């Protein structure tokens, strides 16, 4: 059963193509990370999912409903964290809790107050005067109190210092797994992300580069560091090579193939080398390897 099904999404801004025929699903109970550099369409996807953007063609279904025409019942099941932890910052933490509680019959304020008790804010302090980290806790607490089945978190790590980011991630993972929640999260900061997500979807301009369980991706996507015999040797980006970064005689070779296959590929191309080793990658390394540095 899928919480989110997006089919053949195509969108343009003016005449600029964002992506074409993008399809993906998010299984219930899974945590999917949509990763991509800035401007690759992460926010576009989030906006389409939340009904703030009508795609040129294709559609997203959330619990079987078109995201453009979500019923209040379905919206009740979706928790939405806006990029930058935007909230009604003209309210204080009591007012905002009172406001939201009126919309959700199953409102459970215990986790909210638990989080708030850890914040060093005064009861009448407006959210607008809080730090980014504190605001993220308010936004998170509200979502937890709403107790939705699907959480859509748009670039939650933006503006958070490492401590808060780690806190957020660990809390979210534990909560999602314990309560069998589905999470759709986007980020352009990959650090720590492997602690959170089950599946990864990596987006580049106009296309999806990878979409698979994060473990599978980490196991099959490899980096080989190769020292070439002659620095002038050209290695073309084709066949099994997904990405090649070359600095003088040092070559970073990214591929989904095994060591044997790469060696066979190189000898077939007549590329001589003096050293050849596989490098262990973090998710961030793999992301950069896949999407290139520039």
């Amino acid at each position, binding site marked *: 059963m899928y919480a989110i099904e997006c089919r053949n999404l195509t969108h343009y801004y003016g005449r600029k193509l964002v992506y074409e025929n993008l399809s993906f699903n998010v299984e219930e109970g899974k945590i999917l990370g949509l990763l991509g550099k800035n401007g690759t369409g992460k926010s576009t996807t989030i906006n389409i999912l939340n009904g703030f953007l*009508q795609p040129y063609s294709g559609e997203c279904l959330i619990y079987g409903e078109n995201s453009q025409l979500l019923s*209040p019942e379905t919206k009740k099941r979706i928790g939405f964290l806006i990029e930058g932890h935007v909230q*009604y910052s003209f309210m204080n933490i009591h007012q905002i809790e009172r406001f*939201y509680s009126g919309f959700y019959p199953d409102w459970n304020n215990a986790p909210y107050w638990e989080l708030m008790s850890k914040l060093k804010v005064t009861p009448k302090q407006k959210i607008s005067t809080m730090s980014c980290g504190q605001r993220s806790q308010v936004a998170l607490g509200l979502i937890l109190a709403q107790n939705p089945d699907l959480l859509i978190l748009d670039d939650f790590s933006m503006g958070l210092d490492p401590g808060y980011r780690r806190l957020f991630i660990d809390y979210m993972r534990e909560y999602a797994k314990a309560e069998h929640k589905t999470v759709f999260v986007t980020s352009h900061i990959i650090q720590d992300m492997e602690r959170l997500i089950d599946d990864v979807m990596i987006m580049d301009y106009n296309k999806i580069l990878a979409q698979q369980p994060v473990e599978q991706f980490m196991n099959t996507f490899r980096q080989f560091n190769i020292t070439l015999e002659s620095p002038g040797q050209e290695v073309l980006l084709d066949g099994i090579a997904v990405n090649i970064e070359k600095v003088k005689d040092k070559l970073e070779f990214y591929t989904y193939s095994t060591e044997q296959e790469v060696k066979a590929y190189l000898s077939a191309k007549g590329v001589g080398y003096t050293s050849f080793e596989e490098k262990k990658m973090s998710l961030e390394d793999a992301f950069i390897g896949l999407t290139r540095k520039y």
Partner: protein
Amino acid sequence: MFKSIAYKEWIKIRLVVWVALGLGLMALINIFLKVRHDILFVDAANYWYSFLFRGFTYFGILKFFPFVAGLAIAIAQYFPETVNKRIKLTFHLPVSENGVLISMHLFGALVLIGVLLTILGLFTAGSAIFFPGEIIRASLLTMMPWFLGGLATYFLVALILLEPMWIFRGLYTAVAAGFITIFLASAPIGSFRPVLLPLGLITLLLAGVVLFSGYRFRKGEM
């Protein structure tokens, strides 16, 4: 649900509402202190005369009050929604998107109408001390376009603020300025009477145009 929406809207606008009411009351106090003073000095009969036959209006300082109140309440209510596109949160609430916008708008409009009617009511009560029904009716008739204009201002400023694209905000502002000017045109006492019905009707219909901006936002204009 409406209670929660009203609660949020009230937090945004309450300061502006109290300030507007305070300013309106100060204007009324000023008006009637001056009327009392002038009647003592020039005699009531002459004071009536200047209203009936000279076109003198003793309530001129109220002319821009509804406009300012409508503008201020609309800004206080909708500007915070546009910062960081916060209106997304509102549209994400488990209520129909148009429903939530209509509720917000209805609440704001009702509060504005409440402020305006309070001032009008106190004005009428104060006038009744000094003037006969004819003068009060003519006064209210003269002020009616100003008060309708205040309401129209509220509706149009909401449209402008929620519009996602700056260029269109500018264009809407041009049209709104031209339209509001009609209400505030200087004209003799009571001369707006034939046009009040069409103006009132258009104003009433304008209550819904905020949905146009809301729709444009939801369809991803930017």
